[in-house]
């Protein structure tokens, strides 16, 4: 029973982690809480629906298409709504992000209507017995895709030149620029990667819960953001850990009888962790200096 809940929790957590990575990478470099990120995830899910239902594509093609579409969208949003505000007050890009979020949400409601849409069947819902636990094909796919994407991200950040540039920019933005790193390109790249991961999360969640709606991004985005903060915002392994932690905590909480308060679990955890470890589980301590 417990191991079954753990498995469900890890599956949910993997999707949170995919979204949380986008928040944490963007925050790490430009200290912006990208509140439009949840909407990118939502659009990703809709692109997935579109590819499967209208273009009759399989899972892999739809997933890649959603990721590409959101990549372009993420970069465009950064270009239009955040880049002009890079050197202004901290709150200005935040408000701008909320504007983008409202815009995308309303746009999607206009196109698809406010009702949730079912995700067209793309994989069969076979169940496999694995000792005491049952695992569905959807769960296997989510776990595999999420692990592959995260491994890919780790590889890029660790070994590829642009990934090194990303780390340098998040370490010290100004020095990185002085060292000849094209910071604007790095930021665009960060938005592209983050948005692609969120889109993958959107498609996977759409298949898992068999429901896609224009408002799905709000709560999922906030929770994923919680996950990013839980793990220590700015830290990539932290976002993965935070996502898994949150998914497991939420699933166990629901199983433990707190189902009515499911949506509050993430935020309660968040406040508790912030009180005892203000920079999250894997975050570096903030230095107070003059």
């Amino acid at each position, binding site marked *: 029973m417990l191991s079954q809940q753990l498995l469900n929790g890890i599956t949910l957590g993997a999707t949170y982690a995919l979204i949380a990575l986008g928040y944490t990478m963007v925050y790490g470099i430009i200290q912006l809480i990208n509140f439009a990120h949840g909407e990118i995830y939502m659009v990703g899910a809709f692109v997935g629906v579109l590819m499967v239902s209208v273009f009759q594509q399989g899972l892999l093609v739809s997933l890649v298409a959603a990721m590409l579409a959101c990549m372009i969208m993420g970069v465009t949003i950064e270009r239009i709504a955040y880049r002009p505000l890079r050197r202004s*007050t901290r709150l200005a890009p935040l408000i*701008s992000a909320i*504007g983008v979020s409202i*815009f995308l949400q309303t*746009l999607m409601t206009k196109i698809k209507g406010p009702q949730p849409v079912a995700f067209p069947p793309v994989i069969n819902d076979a169940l496999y017995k694995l000792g005491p636990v049952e695992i569905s094909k959807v769960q296997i796919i989510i776990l595999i895709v999420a692990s592959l994407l995260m491994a890919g991200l780790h590889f890029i950040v660790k070994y590829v030149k642009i990934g090194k540039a990303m780390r340098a920019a998040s370490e010290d933005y100004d020095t990185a620029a002085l060292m000849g790193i094209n910071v604007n390109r790095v930021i665009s790249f960060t938005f592209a990667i983050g948005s692609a991961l969120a889109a993958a999360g959107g498609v996977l969640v759409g298949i898992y819960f068999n429901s896609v709606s224009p408002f799905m991004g709000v709560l999922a985005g906030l929770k994923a953001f919680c996950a990013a903060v839980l793990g220590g915002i700015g830290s990539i392994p932290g976002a993965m850990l935070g996502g898994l932690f949150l998914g497991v905590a939420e699933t166990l909480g629901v199983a433990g009888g707190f189902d009515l308060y499911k*949506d509050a679990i993430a935020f*309660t955890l968040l406040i508790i962790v*912030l009180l005892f470890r203000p920079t999250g589980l894997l975050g570096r301590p903030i230095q*107070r200096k003059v």
Partner: protein
Amino acid sequence: MDSIFSMFLNDYYIQVLTMLGIYLIGALGLNLITGVTGQLSFGHAAFLSIGAYTSAILSLKLHTPFGLAILAGGLMAGLWGVLLGYPTLRLTGDYLGIATLGFGEIVRVVFLNMTITGGALGLAGIPRNTTLTVVLLVVILSVWAMVRLENSRFGRSLVAIREDEIAAEAMGVNITTAKITAFAIGTFLAGISGGLYAHLIQYLNPSDFGFLKSFEFLTFIVLGGLGSIPGVILGTSVLTLAPEFLRFISDYRMLVYGLLMVFMMIVRPRGLLGGVQLRRLFAKKNVQQTGTSASGGAN
């Protein structure tokens, strides 16, 4: 006095103006927290909802007089402000904002599951006691109080905290007390605003006080010019009236509203009146400097 208003204005305008006044009270509260003291709060709507539900339940269940119910709502919100502020205000900048964001969502979920609040069905049948006259009086009172406060010793210590927390501490400002007091006053105003809202709309639903509502308030004060009272009034007026003026494009209203937010930020990132009235405070020239100070001086 209401009869005088109704001689000049039709019901629609009175409703819109009353709403504007109610939002203005809440926005003034948030301005004290974020604009003057520099502490980010993403959970302002939660305090509105605490005030709204407290006063509405008092009115419905105990038939408390209107004024008393509103005051109780304000005090309840202020109390929760202190309870939340005490442990969280030692967090700096964005982390405080994140904690208040979490608090806001928790309050929404709790109200959604309590029986006394009517849960997801909402609370209906609240007496309609809020009039334009009452709101106008409260607005005048709060603007006056805020102006007086900003020019007081306490107000100056708040500005000092916004500009440089460590320097303020070194100068003998008791940071924790000052921040919590500012938080208490700001959330008290939010509670008052919520109570008036409840007795105007006559219906409350937890989903009306979600995180987007908190952001609406933040937008009001940022758009007007952070920390400037005329700015708050202008920003709140523009953004409350914008959806009304945009009614002619009915369906695309929120679409344009979102674009407008992005556009206005890009054109005037420091707000419509930002830098106009605040030139003295922001005389440091360095834009980056005011940037960090506006969000609570992280780092």
